[in-house]
């Protein structure tokens, strides 16, 4: 198996790559902007799991480069893990459209652009799977991060449509909906320890979904029930909450 990881410098992506390398002996294309860090990660995964791991430059928001990027991969991947994203600063994004645009570009437009290129190839070959990291923040808009949430929500809807399109060609699309993951992105936030998932736990959940044929996976599992409750609050009440 050959796996392409987009946004491979994130901790969650690294853990997913390690899981597939360990259990499937998957060869890895690690793609991201910071090539130096990526090369270290590729080397590390190659030594630990005795697989081929290659670091490749990829910029999610340089849309016009995506076609050429995918063309350059040889052999073509059997699966794609899309893990890039950008949390951004909600308050800044409210004042400054440039920040809002960055958030939407990194979380949604970049994904749309590259996944269309990949989907076309997978659809033609009738082979492949796509694992994409969206977020529980995309399930309902909250004042503390609704711009990020809107971008992730758009991604979730997009993935659902893509799944619908690719299903008849036997190409799977798995939507991953993480809550909080203990990573660099959340290190400085004061989040409840009980709700945090380690990147390795996320990777286990993703791999289990891959094996069992699930379409949507919440990680950790209890987010499914938390979000069920949050989604069921009537808008009349929800708009008065401080969330």
């Amino acid at each position: 198996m050959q796996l392409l990881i987009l946004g491979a410098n994130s901790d969650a992506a690294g853990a997913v790559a390690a899981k597939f390398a360990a259990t499937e002996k998957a060869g890895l294309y690690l793609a991201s902007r910071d090539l130096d860090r990526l090369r270290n990660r590729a080397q590390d995964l190659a030594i630990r799991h005795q697989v081929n791991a290659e670091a490749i430059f990829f910029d999610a928001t340089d849309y016009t480069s995506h076609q050429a990027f995918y063309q350059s991969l040889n052999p073509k991947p059997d699966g794609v893990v899309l893990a890039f994203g950008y949390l951004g600063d909600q308050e800044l994004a409210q004042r400054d459209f440039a920040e809002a645009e960055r958030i939407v570009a990194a979380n949604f437009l970049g994904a749309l652009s590259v996944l269309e290129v990949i989907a076309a190839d997978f659809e033609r070959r009738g082979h492949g799977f796509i694992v994409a990291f969206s977020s529980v923040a995309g399930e309902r808009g909250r004042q503390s991060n609704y711009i990020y949430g809107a971008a992730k929500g758009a991604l979730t809807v997009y993935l659902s449509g893509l799944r619908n399109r690719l299903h008849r060609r036997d190409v799977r699309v798995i939507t991953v909906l993480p809550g909080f993951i203990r990573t660099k992105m959340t290190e400085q936030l004061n989040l409840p320890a009980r709700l945090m998932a380690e990147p390795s736990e996320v990777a286990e959940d993703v791999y289990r979904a891959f094996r069992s044929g699930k379409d949507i996976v919440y990680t950790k599992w209890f987010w499914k029930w938390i979000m069920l409750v949050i989604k069921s609050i009537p808008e009349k009440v929800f708009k008065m909450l401080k969330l």
Partner: protein
Amino acid sequence: MKLSGWGRYPWIEAAGVSFETPEELAGYLKTSAAGIVHGLGRSYGDSALNEHVIFSRRFNKIIHFDDATGVVTAESGVTLAEIIATFLPRGWFLKVTPGTKFITLGGAIASDVHGKNHHQAGCFSECVLYFDLMLPGGNVVRCSRDQNRDLFLATCGGMGLTGVVLAAAFRLQPVKSAYIRETVIRCRNLHEVIDLFEENKSIDYSVAWIDCLARGDKMGRSVLMLGEHAKTGRKTPPPRPSLSIPMNLPGFCLNQYSVSWFNHFYYHRQPEFVSGRLVHLDPFFYPLDKINQWNRMYGRHGFTQYQFVLPKAAGRDGLRAILSRISAAGLGSFLAVLKLLGPKNENLLSFPLEGYTLALDFKIQPRLFPFLDKLDRIVLDHGGRLYLAKDVRMSEQTFKQGYPKWTELHRLRRSLNLITKFNSLQSKRLGV
């Protein structure tokens, strides 16, 4: 965030940052207040605690492995567990391992850890070829026995007080299987176990569990465990932890009666003599790693491990003096471990001396520290000292008498401006 060492005492409010590249770390060091690196937090006391800490866990890439020589080069946040999981199936194992594999490479160097084979293999630094060390200005120096030797000797065992270890190269040993051929001998008292340690010096690994509540002619009764790498067997990777202590046990669970009962049971559970049984090296080296968060067993006040070494000449008398104090005080605990150590090395603050080391766990309680102060005096009177990776309470004077080379470290720390950047609660308490 709330932070403590493995002993869950003391807890402090700390601000932490992590780094993934040397550049990130250098940027942080330029502006940061004095702090200390914190790996997996397995040192028992306050040696990795400060109001500011630098987490090394994300700096954890393996950089190179030479399968002809068994030399691994890795970033300091990599754990020994990861090293074992990666290389044991390929026939390589650590040359020196402490009693837990859940420590980082950087922590192994900073505490210059030792294991059941210290009498033959020495401390962890013996297998370290070199490491890169970041100094307060963000500059990186390579340290080995030939290059920047003074910093090498100060950093191995230096408790993180000489800078931040970045990448390190260290040697593994080839093994033919993942199994240990173990011999277990029940010893009726201290004399018997010490004689057996001496008789079995040629065996690679040796350690004894000791009942520190037994008195009279049973004083020092113990179970001696000897082991050597098996010549045949599979190289299966280590099993995963299976048990977990989900919360603090109430403090009253551990008292002299329950411990005495446990010790009695444990001693008599062992047959008098078992020769050459095969056990996986994981339970042999890391029996407690099977139980996640076993440190919660000691209740919410936490615990400390008191580990000292006595030079060989004073060993028997000193051990007897200390064991009789402990059994009389009734403060003892399950985990008392006795081990014969080999010759000391040249590092400034490495713990081992040729002689006997005893490690005892004690629940934190009001009468404990005055009692340990008394034991300190016996240890010093016999020319011994305490292990910094375990310590949470020794006095500055006890430290300075036990580690006469502290002055060299202090001089180095002053001259390289390390004092302003690298401090732990322990280093402040000990005045180093």
